[in-house]
């Protein structure tokens, strides 16, 4: 127990790191595109550097339990600083690198930061700007020395210098760091991640080594990840997902993380590395798909024809083949051919041909988008989790992919539903506490030790969890069935002509909706049809557009009808708003989320109109123009009915 390799259990990240350095010293732990090539660092090199940085920090006076702020893009040396901090029993706190200086003040103060490791001059300037407001901040260590020549502030130090100082220290006192690592315990806090905080101030979520190792181990086992995986680390280090995939899982499985050259080159770098394990939020997948379609528009007629033909084949059977479901030999052959001619090269050009497992999360992904990637053979799956659960609650198992579920509870995780439909989770990956916020901690974990996610959902017949809404938004129709406005609105928004939707139904007999059309998509559609229109309001009032939207709503209704829990939420009546919901008018948040209550209040007459069975409703509302002036616009809005469907369950019962 007392020798230098004395850790028996691999229950902290520093021990995992040192173990990799022993087990696979020459395997690549990290690569970074710099100076034209992928600079590679082996596990042994990483371990040595982490030790040096840790010793250097200790020399500067970094103590157990101290918090270390880390600010910058995904750079190997910033990841090493995270590990170095953990070696010393400190707590790394990653900040979003694109935040302005003032936004950083809160976290620096809240976490009582004394030490910060930052990427470059830009971040140093931010630190210096707010230095008077954060008196505790003693040391700012910068990775990239470029442009730092004339900075003479005593707080500043280069990571090179710290590294060198620590290297010598580590050589002279080899026992010191081993001792520090040996002091670490699984239950120590390994990292603090700040929640974005849609309500109130951000809270620091304290996660232990044990929690993240459990979450990572579960994920690694679930997807059978090996030390041969390659992952591209390009999402903010401050985000829980990056910490899980690029740090915790890499530390557990021993695979390689790859840092792109810069934000602009991510796509090129993705293509070069060809990761085997990949994560991206839905909007990245969406942008990629849009680009694919735009680029294919420029192709010759013949090539376009081949492309669309095989894309149709892929849509028909690609996802089934990926899931290992039975597919006719003819389709299999067609798909094989398509893979040879179109799909394979396409995936390759996108850098996705080596992907074994890809995940998306963070927002609802459109079924078409999701299906597209699966159909071309990219094993894209969804997961569900929060910062408080190490981004680890549910995962979609290979071969059991449902477009609108987030999969089954992950290994070690227990999920149950509260009476109001709220999802409650329990397991080793739960947060230890919110930093200095016992009140908030107590509020979020109930007496039985379940974390209350605030999301509402239900399990389908196969045990897959479906997320429907924020629990607080979920209401009831008068017949007692569940009304989940976000769930309905998301389904509407996947329809390309609908930009925003607001649905009503809580305490009502049936569901109604306001629709904002997507002026670009509908405008294009109108142009193709040769329809003339003058602006948004005019287009929105055209009966052909109403027909178009109605079709979409009826599709959604049919979909809702197929689910017994949701069949009551079919939209009976709807109208298309005469103006776009706008953040300037207070109708949307700055992050473009609908402010439901505000909208309901403002357009009360319209809601009345919807429920009173009128054919149309006059509305006059105030708008704020871009120059700050206000004005009034008025319109007589048409109200239409949409077809609803008999619930499937009812049919079966009949």
């Amino acid at each position, binding site marked *: 127990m007392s020798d230098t390799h004395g850790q028996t259990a691999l229950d902290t990240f520093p021990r995992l790191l040192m173990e990799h350095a022993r087990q696979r010293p020459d395997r690549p732990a990290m690569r970074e595109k*710099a*100076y*034209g090539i992928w*600079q590679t*660092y082996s596990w042994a*090199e990483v371990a*040595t*550097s982490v030790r*040096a940085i840790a010793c250097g920090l200790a020399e500067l006076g970094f103590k157990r339990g101290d918090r270390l702020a880390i600010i910058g893009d995904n750079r190997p*040396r910033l990841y090493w600083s995270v590990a170095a901090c953990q070696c010393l029993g400190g707590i790394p706190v990653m900040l979003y690198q694109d935040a302005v200086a003032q936004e950083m003040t809160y976290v620096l103060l809240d976490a009582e930061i004394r030490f910060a490791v930052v990427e470059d001059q830009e971040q140093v300037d931010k630190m210096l700007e707010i230095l008077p407001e954060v008196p505790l901040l003693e040391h700012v260590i910068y990775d990239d*020395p*470029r*442009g730092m*020549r*004339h900075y003479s502030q005593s707080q500043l130090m280069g990571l*090179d210098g710290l*590294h*060198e100082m620590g*290297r010598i220290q580590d050589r002279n006192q080899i026992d010191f760091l081993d001792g520090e690592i040996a002091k670490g315990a699984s239950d120590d806090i390994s990292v603090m991640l700040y929640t974005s905080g849609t309500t109130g101030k951000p809270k620091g979520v304290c996660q232990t080594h044990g929690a993240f190792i459990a979450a990572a181990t579960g994920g690694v086992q679930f997807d059978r990840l090996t030390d041969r995986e390659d992952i591209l680390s390009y999402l903010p280090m401050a985000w829980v997902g990056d910490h899980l995939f690029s740090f915790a899982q890499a530390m557990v499985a021993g695979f390689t993380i790859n840092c792109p*050259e*810069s934000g*602009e*080159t991510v796509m*090129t770098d993705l293509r070069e590395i060809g990761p085997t394990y990949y994560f991206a939020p839905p909007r990245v997948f969406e942008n990629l798909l849009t680009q694919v379609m735009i680029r294919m528009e420029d192709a010759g007629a013949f090539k376009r024809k081949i492309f669309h033909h095989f894309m149709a084949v892929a849509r028909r059977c690609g996802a089934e083949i990926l899931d290992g479901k039975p597919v006719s030999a003819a389709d299999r052959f067609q798909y094989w051919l398509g893979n040879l001619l179109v799909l394979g090269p396409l995936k390759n050009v996108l850098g996705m041909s080596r992907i074994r497992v890809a995940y998306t999360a963070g927002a609802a992904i459109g079924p078409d988008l999701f299906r597209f990637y699966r159909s071309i053979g990219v094993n894209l799956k969804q997961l569900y989790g929060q910062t408080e659960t190490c981004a680890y609650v549910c995962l979609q198992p290979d071969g059991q992919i449902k477009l609108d579920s987030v999969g089954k509870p992950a290994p070690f995780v227990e999920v149950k539903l509260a009476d109001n439909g709220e999802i409650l989770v329990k397991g080793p990956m739960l947060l230890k506490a919110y930093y200095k916020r016992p009140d908030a901690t107590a509020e979020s974990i109930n007496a039985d030790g379940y974390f209350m996610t605030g999301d509402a959902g239900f399990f389908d017949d196969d045990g897959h969890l479906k997320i429907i809404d924020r629990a607080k938004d979920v209401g009831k129709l008068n017949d007692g069935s569940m009304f989940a406005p976000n769930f309905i609105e998301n389904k509407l928004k996947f329809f390309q002509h609908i930009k925003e939707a607001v649905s009503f139904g809580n305490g009502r007999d049936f569901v109604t909706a306001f629709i904002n059309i997507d002026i670009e998509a509908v405008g294009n559609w109108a142009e193709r049809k040769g329809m003339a229109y003058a602006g948004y309001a005019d287009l929105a009032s055209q009966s052909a557009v109403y027909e178009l939207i109605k079709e979409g709503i009826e599709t959604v209704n049919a979909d809702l009808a197929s689910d017994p829990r949701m069949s009551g939420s079919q939209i009976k009546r709807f109208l298309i708003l005469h103006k776009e919901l706008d953040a300037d008018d207070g109708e949307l948040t700055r992050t473009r989320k609908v402010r439901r209550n505000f909208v309901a209040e403002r357009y009360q007459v319209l809601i009345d109109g919807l429920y009173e069975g009128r054919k149309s409703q006059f509305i006059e509302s105030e708008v704020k123009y871009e120059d700050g002036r206000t004005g009034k616009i008025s319109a007589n809005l048409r109200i239409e009915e949409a077809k609803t469907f008999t619930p499937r369950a009812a049919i079966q019962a009949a």
Partner: protein
Amino acid sequence: MMNEMAQTATLPESGRRIGEVILDLKNISLRFGGVKALTDISFDVREHEIRSIIGPNGAGKSSMLNVMNGVYHPQEGTILFRGEPRQQMDPHMAATQGIARTFQNIALFKGMSVLDNIMTGRNLKMKTNLFQHALFWGAAQREEIEHRKKVEEVIDFLEIQSIRKTPVGRLPYGLQKRVELARALAAEPTLLLLDEPMAGMNVEEKQDMCRFILDVNDQFGTTIVLIEHDMGVVMDISDRVVVLDYGKKIGDGTPDEVKNDPDVIAAYLGASH
């Protein structure tokens, strides 16, 4: 490993203190046939400074630069470079002495990639011979890689990573200028001659170029002689300015001195307003 990286990533240290005179031009006169391009011009350049040459079109600014690195040979006058007097330079000797330059009309090697263009800037530091190149193995390959590393630092410094392998002919004008600067920097010059580095650039490109010139001067201590038309830029970044008109020197001093010099105002600054 990290230390090695760190060392290759930081280019040689030097402070930005203006030092001794390194280039002293005395009574330079240059004629093309019967046409006098430069008449009896004298001025000096001090170590680590940014020295600008301004003047109206046809004032002889480019000729002055061409005299400095030996492309033109003046009929009269002396050039003292690092104290050594010579009547004229020749371009090769100038290059070996650490003088690099860019041209008014971009003089890149059009058929080569950005990387190869910048690699040619390392030419003088390459020691292997043709027979070693023929094998491209051992010393030749080692040398190639060693210099590639240096070139990559320059690429990183000037932020042209994404065009590394593009043929220069396909680049927009502003980037070509930047590549030309990179090629000159790759030679690790002590004296850098820039002939209108910002001509034809938009505001943003100009700002970038300005920043690079200052960074070069600051980080590597490179002495810079600059020809530029944009008065704002010249007055902002120069330590001293020499003013030419019709091949004669009409002013010399700090930006403020030059700005207030009545001759200069009459002949040049006044004329532009």
